[in-house]
């Protein structure tokens, strides 16, 4: 997992984004057991309370499932995973569009540039 955390946004939200990304990219398989709060906190070098909060929020989004004493695992629910992937790609598209906007390039124009890129390759 890629923990690049900065100080200017709530840390728990950055952790949530990193974990969502890792799941969407397939670094964790559906149903795979998730590491413990303590291990993840040590990996990310954050406070265990903050990691706990991020994981609890991801449970609320149904992306993680609590298995009681056996810890958490990634959901097997295909619909949830699909929706998460969709949402991640949409966020990416929005960020991309905003970057083009800075140069006065409208989304349609940006899309054209992306298509041309594909041809070049």
């Amino acid at each position, binding site marked *: 997992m890629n923990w690049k955390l900065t*100080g*200017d946004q*709530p840390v*728990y939200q950055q952790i949530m984004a990193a974990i969502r990304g890792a799941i969407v990219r397939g670094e964790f398989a559906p149903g795979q057991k998730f590491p413990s709060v303590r291990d993840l*906190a*040590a990996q990310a070098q*954050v*406070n265990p*309370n903050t990691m706990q*909060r991020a994981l609890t929020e991801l449970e609320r989004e149904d992306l993680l499932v609590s298995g009681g004493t056996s810890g958490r695992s990634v959901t097997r629910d295909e619909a949830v995973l699909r929706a998460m992937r969709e949402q991640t790609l949409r966020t990416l598209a929005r960020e991309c569009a905003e970057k083009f906007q800075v140069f006065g390039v409208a989304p349609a124009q940006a899309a054209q540039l992306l298509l041309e890129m594909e041809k070049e390759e």
Partner: protein
Amino acid sequence: MEERYTLKTTGLTKRYGDLGALEELTVSLPQGKIIGLLGPNGSGKTTFMKLAAGLLTPTSGGIEICGEPVGPKTKAMVSYLPDRPYFGRQTRVSEQLDFFGDFYDDFDRQRAEQMLTALGIRPEARFRELSKGNQEKAQLVLVMSRRAKLYLLDEPIGGVDPAARDYILNTIISNYDPQATVVISTHLIADVERVLDEFLFLYQGRVIRGGNADTVREETGKSLDELFREVFKCLPNC
């Protein structure tokens, strides 16, 4: 659920002659949290730590740890890391382990030895033979190997390189106990802010801002480091 507080002060004041170090400080530090005591030099951080550790007596006001006024009982619950080396330079690491074992019932010697081995610090070494970074790490290992209710870490990352800082912060996180409270004082905010639950900005002996770290980031869109620079920029003498 009612929040439990490890440390409570009411109107805590400390003066050195005419000089006020802490003025009417009333704070409550919740159980299970890592709290940053942040402020410029001379803001009262070390005075606060020493009062909580029972090394100074307040001029007025009170301070309680787990419901007990500071005294022999609270000293058994508090693990204090001073802001400068305090082990004898001639002392061997193993002798210091013996001291801790004798002094503190809650000292977990095995744990301390494991961490020292991981750091490559030999028990037979004398403190004067260790580098500054290793001296600081060895002190922190000893302090964190107690099963205390309150850890008071005064500038734990002051004089060490960034890799050693990471090691020290990891030691604090991995020894974290949900029953205990950790207070870290520092002015190196960027380095510690990711591990903090809560923070207090101290200025001329008073708390001028405080709260939950993530809530403040959400509200201001700023890191604690940026907020600190902003808040203290406009204040004189710092």
